[in-house]
């Protein structure tokens, strides 16, 4: 049984304008997304800003309410679960945020930030047990037990991100949604956090939904990946396969845009024209057609269906297999 099953998830935000704030349309942040995540698996979710990847990550944890679709966690449909039962379930799924400077309360010591999660879920019977547990958690992410009494401003970005990870681990979740956890960090610190996430996954059998704009990081951490564009998943499959031979023209462009350190590995660069269209007025047909270098007439009118090219690998493009 998969740990997480997402069926046709949709998130629309109303756009209100005018004197009486009438609804004038909606931002279609996530459209018809389906996938499954196995226990202990790291699944990547890549895309550029505004493609809906963060909204999707938050909707899965019901931090944003989805407008349609189903979220099945561990065999249980949590889409309509009332708030109090949802809170108990949240022990099983946690989140790590992008910016370690804004995701920690500056007035709470690290010990209290981590301890809060323990208190809410009543996981420790006594104050000494709480202290011991906090020390263990700090050590498991490479910090010192003595740090529990210090405040976030005393720590660097990489150390703060470790605290964010310790806080997520406190309730022993099965799934952690990592929303760009290394993007705000310096290059030499990124590697430390990536290695830590990898170690924790192996030791504890954690499942990750790893949201990132950086395909290289995702390829390093995740066996499978979903590529999102304008609210839709356009390609999915094994990360290594997709990086070796991307099918969707968007994935091809995304991959060729990654600046490569290896000079000899450099591929023919595909530079896309224009910008991502507005999700308030997404284009008809294929969402990528206005920027697609190989778009045909029917791409402008017909929305492409998923085409499975090999088991577990599919692409939403009319022209796949014909290039």
């Amino acid at each position, binding site marked *: 049984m998969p740990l997480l099953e997402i069926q046709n998830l949709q998130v629309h935000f109303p756009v209100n304008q005018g004197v009486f704030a009438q609804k004038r349309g909606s931002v279609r942040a996530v459209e018809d997304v389906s996938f499954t995540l196995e226990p202990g698996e790291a699944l990547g979710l890549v895309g*550029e*800003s505004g493609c809906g990847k963060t909204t999707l990550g938050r909707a899965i944890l019901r931090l944003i309410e989805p407008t349609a679709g189903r979220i099945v966690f561990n065999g249980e449909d949590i889409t309509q679960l009332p708030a109090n039962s949802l809170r108990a379930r949240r022990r099983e799924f946690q989140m790590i945020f992008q910016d370690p400077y804004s995701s920690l309360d500056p007035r709470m010591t690290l010990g209290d930030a981590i301890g809060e999660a323990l208190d809410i879920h009543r996981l420790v019977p006594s104050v000494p047990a709480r202290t011991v547990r906090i020390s263990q958690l700090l050590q498991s992410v490479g910090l010192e037990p003595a740090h529990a009494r210090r405040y976030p401003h005393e720590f*660097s970005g*990489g*150390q703060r991100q470790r605290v964010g990870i310790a806080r997520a681990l406190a309730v022993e979740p099965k799934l952690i949604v990592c929303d760009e956890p290394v993007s705000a960090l*310096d*290059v*030499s*610190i*990124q*590697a*430390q956090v*990536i*290695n830590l996430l*990898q170690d924790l996954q192996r030791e504890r059998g954690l499942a990750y939904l790893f949201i990132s*704009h*950086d*395909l*290289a*990081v995702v*390829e*390093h951490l995740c066996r499978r990946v979903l590529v999102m564009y304008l609210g839709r998943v356009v390609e999915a499959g094994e990360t290594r396969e997709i*990086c*070796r031979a991307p099918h969707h023209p968007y994935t091809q*462009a*995304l*991959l*060729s*845009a*990654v*600046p*490569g*350190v*290896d*000079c000899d*590995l*450099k591929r023919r*660069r595909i*530079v*896309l024209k*224009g*910008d*991502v269209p507005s999700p308030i007025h997404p284009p008809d047909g294929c969402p990528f057609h206005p920027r697609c270098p190989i778009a045909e007439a029917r791409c402008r009118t017909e929305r492409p269906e998923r085409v499975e090219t090999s088991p577990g690998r599919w692409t939403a493009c009319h022209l796949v297999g014909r290039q």
Partner: protein
Amino acid sequence: MPLLEIRGLQVDFGSTRVVDGVSLTVEEGETVCLVGESGCGKSVTALSIARLLGTPPARYAGGEILLQGRDVLRMSSVELRNMRGGVVSYVFQEPGASLNPVMRIGAQIREMLTVHRPTWANENEIIRLLKLVGIPAPESRIRDYPHQLSGGMQQRAMIAMALASEPRLLVADEPTTALDVTIQAQIIELLRELQQQLGMAILLITHNLGIVGDIADRVAVMYAGQIVEEAPADTLLDQPLHPYTQALIRSVPHIGRERQRLESIPGAVPAPGSWPTGCRFEPRCPIAHTECASNSPNLAAAKPDRRVRCPFWE
């Protein structure tokens, strides 16, 4: 004579030294990348070229910055005004924060033209510049306010402004960091094309080693206020000599490489003011010798065309 020659530049903020003896040259028409992590002093070095730092808090404690042979640090205010924008133009990281939000794009470019090339301060020239940087339908864009453009388009408008005065040197401080990968590729491509067309020199400040291989002729790597290695771009990436550069390259995941464990650099970048006394990389260095903790190495020539601040590079 090189276009830009920085000799032993030292910059202090209060009593804290932030840039400590940086020497760097940029020839006419050359692209040089200055690479480093946050707090290494790369942006302060870049801003010093046109003396853009506020004094105080900053203080130029030593060295000289020769721009076309004349020392920027000793220029009068009139000379400075002609040099800024005239010889050197800047493109900054966040186009949204650098453009004036209450002025139309066309008017902002016209301002540059009025100051530096008054006879060309007309609409045709503005449209030509917007076309040059690849902004579609420039005739109507000229009346847009910055918020009506996307991040990539705003950065193009910034570049058009920087080019309006026909500078000899374009200093781009993290020009693509705030942008998405596909847009980043567009801007790097644009800078490369513009350089071929206009023959200006580019000094690109970045933390992303990946960009280096795509655009740079030469690279200087900075760490804790000093340049630790300088080399032609392709040789630096293939064969880094300084342990910091080596570690930096190995700590970034690469597409298509086996999923081995990343080599991380232990510890964190030391903040200005708490730099180690000997070699500044010594506490994090995998090959540190005992004497490294007390002897601070010089940036010495190693192989033709290369300089490295480590006596154990072989």
